[in-house]
């Protein structure tokens, strides 16, 4: 997956993934059951779920948040992400 790109920008450079608010999360695992992209991973111990593979998350997808009853999942701001992607594209365009 390392050569994955989104809009011509390396996926590695795009900050888009869910964040789990552990003060709300009750580890029901709905989000993990839902997402087919192996973004989440289950753990033993107190924190039973982590965002293990943020770069697997589909840029601009927020689908798992809808499955979360306690509203524990948040995402980066979309306009900011778009702006960042455009900026990287502009920079890389110049470099070429």
């Amino acid at each position, binding site marked *: 997956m390392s050569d994955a790109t989104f809009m011509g920008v390396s996926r590695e450079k795009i900050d888009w993934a869910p964040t789990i608010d552990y003060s709300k999360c*009750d580890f029901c695992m709905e989000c993990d059951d839902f997402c087919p992209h192996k973004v989440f991973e289950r753990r033993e111990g107190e924190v039973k779920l982590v965002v293990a593979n943020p770069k697997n998350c589909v840029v601009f*997808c*927020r689908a798992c948040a809808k499955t*979360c009853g306690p509203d524990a999942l948040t995402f980066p701001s979309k306009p900011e992400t778009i702006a960042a992607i455009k900026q990287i594209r502009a920079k890389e365009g110049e470099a070429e």
Partner: protein
Amino acid sequence: MKCAVLVCSGLDKPLGSLAREVAVCAAEQAECEIVCPVLLNNSPGRYEATLKELPLAVVDGCGTRCATKLATQMGLKIGRRMLLPEAIKELGETFEDSLRPGPEARALALKLALQLTADEAEEEAAETEAVTFPEPADFLKVTHDKFVFPIPVEGYFFNENDCWVQVVGGRARVGITDYMQQTLTDITYFAPPEVGREVEQFDDLGAVESAKAVFDVISPVGGKIVAVNAALEDTPELINEGPYTGGWLVELELTDFEADRELLLTGEQYAVKVKQKAEEASA
């Protein structure tokens, strides 16, 4: 609206208890018939008459969508759908987590039931002239193993989230690509967005559901939603049959297509992506 209500009633989950409460309220308030998922599963014949007579409203307590899946397995046509966490959020309410619905949860269930059974709002006839979207003339064909994924070229653009946009003047039609349609397999439901809502590029435009997965439709363009494809209510399989034509999802009035275009792909560029995605998926 009188309907048959099928709820997940997940006994070990607070939202399951809430779903059950919603069914009871719907029965009380709108003379709906409750369909018990367990009995339906074991002896479908018991509900045959009811389901023939009444449209089916399905309520799921969580994203596992047990009630929807059951309805799909039984080959039932879903008239309405409610996913509780989403519906609660839309109402701006919160839910106290308890297996035994207290007064607040019961009040919430009543609100949800009323929403579930509300008569259809008169379709806001959009005050815009109809635009004709021509059928695509040429397709690029991406092949992978035994699969073929056609991609229209003329007049269509794509985002990397497997949605297309066809632009005619200031209007646009949006749908999902043939690749995504084949990935989802048999589509059972399109949860449409609200007509009149303004969306930005990459906002969601409802969701397409199959027994296999739920796919959030991510808008390739920003604009105002002026129409949703009403035919999909009865025949969501149109999305499988003609994802670029009869299975279109939403029409928008564009805000600034030139700006949106910067982050869209042409058919040729999307074809490269599809090839990659198909290879990754089977790797």
